[in-house]
């Protein structure tokens, strides 16, 4: 029995705008999705802003109803058997919200232990264990308002584990964290998966998915574009090489000329401080560097490298350039 089984799932949000003349607007957040996650798997859902990641996580978490389709988690219907199912799901939404800031870290997780109806005897031993796991033992009796972002996020992790759930639904667990804090969280997630917990994780960071997940689904505009291993995703661009050109103030018309180059497969422009970094995907061995630089002859170029494509390039090829708008 798969841990998560989603068939033909659609979710439409209805919103109304205007006070006097109410207009109904429908947003299709998930569009006939099929997905299977096996028990014990560490599964990643990758997608740009507005792709529908949070919507899918909430439906799996039983706090949002599908418009149509079936969703079974651990064999239970996420619509009708929600009370039983909730005991076995650990839910985490990234970001700083979702904690009682005026209470201490320990009070926060103890409270959720009761809400999940964990027997008091178990709470007693589990709270210190979890605080230890996320490295908050020393600061557990301080108020959350004084915690750093990373500490809050680690507290979230402890909170979502308090009832020893079988399936973890983690929506962007490293959102807004610095690289060190994010790496700590990833380490904890990997450890939990090693213990046998099924992990469903969303992200818009490729390297995170690459580092953690056995399989990945790419979601865009409510549709699943591909489900496979990260390396299979990389194979999408195996026949390509990427020319990376770092330059200053390339005007739009020059970029447009580059884009028109007949042998260019894909191009994305990354702006880093005052610099622009152009990632130009070209067929492997095509040696187009000179031609590209010719187009850029009026522009100040600081660095040029040719490299192997990464998961990020594959993702961009699949989703399009908006993939990286965060």
């Amino acid at each position, binding site marked *: 029995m798969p841990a998560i089984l989603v068939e033909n799932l659609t979710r439409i*949000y209805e919103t109304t705008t205007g006070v006097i003349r109410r207009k109904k607007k429908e947003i299709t957040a998930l569009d006939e999705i099929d997905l299977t996650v096996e028990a014990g798997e560490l599964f990643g859902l990758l997608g740009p802003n507005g792709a529908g990641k949070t*919507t899918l996580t*909430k439906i799996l*978490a*039983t*706090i*949002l*109803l599908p418009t149509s389709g079936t969703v079974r988690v651990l064999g239970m219907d996420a619509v009708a058997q929600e*009370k039983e199912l*909730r*005991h076995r*799901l650990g*839910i985490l*939404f990234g*970001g700083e*919200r*979702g*904690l*009682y*800031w*005026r*209470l201490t870290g320990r*009070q926060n997780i*103890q*409270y*959720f232990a*009761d*809400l*999940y*109806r964990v027997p*008091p005897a178990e709470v007693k031993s589990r709270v210190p264990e979890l605080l230890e796991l996320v490295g908050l033992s020393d600061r557990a009796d301080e108020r959350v308002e004084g915690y750093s972002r990373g500490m809050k996020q680690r507290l979230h992790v402890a909170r979502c584990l308090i009832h020893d759930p079988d399936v973890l639904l983690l929506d962007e667990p490293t959102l807004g964290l610095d690289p060190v804090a994010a790496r700590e969280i990833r380490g904890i997630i990997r450890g939990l998966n090693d213990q046998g917990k099924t992990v469903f994780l969303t992200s818009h960071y490729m390297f995170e998915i690459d580092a953690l997940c056995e399989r990945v689904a790419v979601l865009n505009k409510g549709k699943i574009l591909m489900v496979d291993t990260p390396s299979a995703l990389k194979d999408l661009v195996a026949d390509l090489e990427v020319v990376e050109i770092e330059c200053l103030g390339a005007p739009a018309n020059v970029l447009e000329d580059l884009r028109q180059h007949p042998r260019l497969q894909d191009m994305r422009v990354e702006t880093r401080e005052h610099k622009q970094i152009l990632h130009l995907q070209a067929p492997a061995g095509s040696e187009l560097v000179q031609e590209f630089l010719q187009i850029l002859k009026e522009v100040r170029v600081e660095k040029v490298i040719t490299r192997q494509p990464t998961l990020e390039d594959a993702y961009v090829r699949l989703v399009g350039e908006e993939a990286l708008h965060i």
Partner: protein
Amino acid sequence: MTHLQSLAASIRVIQNSYKMQMAENVTRNTFQFTLALQPVLFTLLSVGIYRFAGKPDLSLYGIIGSGLIGMWNANLWTSGFIVQGERWSGTLELLLATPSSLMVVLFGKSLSNASASLGAIFITFLTGALVFRVPLAIEDPLGFFVGLILTLLALTTLGLVLGTLFVLTRAAGNMTQVLNYPIFILSGLTFPITTLPLWTRPLSWALAPSWGSQALGQAAGLSDEALMPAFLWLIVLALIYFLIGLVAYRRIERIARAKGGLQEF
């Protein structure tokens, strides 16, 4: 889980919601301020007016009424803002995702606010004694105490029912303003309900604060009527409010799931 275990778990949720809410409130200045200052002002006003009007015999009535207004205010405000607060902190969604029902959680939290508001009654008596030299004599202390507890339960459950309105609206602040005054006027907390038009009487009967005011007044020695009928009414009303609350919150949980949370504000 057996029914008994599940009941015990629910009681633990109420207990801990109570404790957590208390722990949070202790750190809130506005909460303490509203709780302490309002009863003093109301007592000064109401007893002052009765004195000025040449009816000092109504002083005790004014004190009890002001205390109940204080309790009711604290209750309605906080019941409304519990949900709002959970919304702001982003915890409402996580509460909805647990196997515990929202109603049970909110009941614990409201009860916590309500029992803190018990202080209002003591403050009004103290103000009465210090400023107007109204003797602190209560004829039937036990009856007064029981009346207070029953009033507390009834006020909490009524606060919960009215709290459903806050769950569904963003205008919790306005809503409290709109609901506050009519309820304590109808409940005879400012002046006796006998001075109101007759058609309002059924509304007064449906509201717990009127019976609370009556029970406490009688126990304090304002009239010789039996306490039992008022006690019974308080119990019946508390039960009715609780049942309405159960149905309402189940509906709210369903709406939340259908709409995608009560997260927007």
